[in-house]
């Protein structure tokens, strides 16, 4: 879950609290949120709720379990971490290059903390060089393609842990 989604979620919780709604389920694409306030009208501690695994995006396979009114299974730490990662995708088809020219050092590597707008790599096709900028700030936790590998339009290139 990125920063924007987290903000939306907080606003949603405020709204639900004000409206005295006891339970709320939301599904949007891969994102599933279930909010259940403590009984007798006393809203649960907000900060605790957001941080707790009770309100985390879960992947689709767990939705069915939740749909049968069973308590939402607490996802593993890995699952929630993956869903919170930001994926930088390729805007064009081409060849992935990690550096400005062969032999030069890579624009960015795993472990680097990058700013929004910082160049992460080049995708080249038909002698058209596309410098791919990060569309979020954060730490690079995964590079998803090899240097020199062909990539498709929209293919994930890097996974970032947003800051």
């Amino acid at each position, binding site marked *: 879950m990125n920063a924007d989604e987290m903000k939306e979620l907080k606003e949603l919780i405020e709204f639900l609290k004000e409206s005295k709604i006891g339970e709320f389920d939301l599904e949007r694409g891969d994102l599933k949120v279930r909010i259940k306030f403590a009984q007798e009208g006393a809203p649960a501690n907000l900060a605790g709720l957001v941080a707790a695994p009770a309100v985390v995006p879960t992947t689709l396979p767990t939705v069915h379990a939740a749909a049968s009114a069973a308590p939402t299974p607490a996802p593993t730490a890995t699952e929630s971490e993956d869903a919170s990662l930001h994926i930088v995708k390729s805007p064009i088809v081409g060849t992935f290059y990690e550096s400005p020219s062969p032999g030069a050092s890579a624009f960015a590597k795993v472990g680097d903390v990058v700013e929004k707008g910082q160049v992460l790599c080049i995708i080249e096709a038909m002698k058209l060089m596309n*410098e791919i900028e990060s569309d979020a700030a954060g730490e690079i936790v995964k590079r998803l393609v090899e240097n020199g590998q062909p990539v498709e339009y929209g293919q994930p290139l890097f996974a970032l842990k947003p800051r």
Partner: protein
Amino acid sequence: MDDTFHLPEMNQMLKDTPFAGKLHFFPSISSTNTYAMQQAEAGAPDGSVYFADQQTAGRGRGTHTWASPPGSGLYVSILLRPQISPADILWLSLATGLAVREAVRKVTVLECDLRWPNDLLFGRRKFCGILTELNAEVTRIRHAVVGIGINVHQEEFPPDLREIATSLHLESGRTWPRQDLLVALLQSLHREVSALSREAAPEILKRLEQASSWVRGKRVRVEEGEGFSGTTEGLDARGFLRVRTANGMRTVFSGGVREA
């Protein structure tokens, strides 16, 4: 010969294009592409043109450089902010090659060959290279800079280039004003860019096949990944070159296509 550029004259000839009034000439510059990308980042408008008599660090693909001695060639970078999706921008790369070919034909009557994606050659020797640099988001192009280097007046090349490079002068024995070439080039580029869309794609593919001896039946070596050899077998619907190899059909994304 006196081969200077007269900007007011050029602006007049380009008055029906977005380039009029946006021509920037430099006696010497490191790289017109580098400068144009910086200007684009700083907010320069669509249609800005940066050209130089000399480049001290002219660039090509990868580690390649473009020899740009003073008074010899046309070194120009054009800033565009096309209203097309990033997925369609590759047509610009192919269309630019066609635009230069048309401009050269118009000014000199010389018919040149196109080596996919957009090198321009006479026989085996190259006289024009094009390098496009793009700044895009997944859904939107912020700017593209088309860099074009044309060998015009060179009467000879250093030994390391002699076998692979030529110039308009060497091919025709005549001297062509760079200003005429630049104006014709910007006019034809304007026509190509205006027509750029997914609908125009089949037309671009057709013209490329007609203009190039490299698209079909050419034995080539491709410097991509570990490299491979084969025979060219046309373009796919996206404009990528298809090469039949001993291990089946391969698609060339990036270039580095050479005669085998």
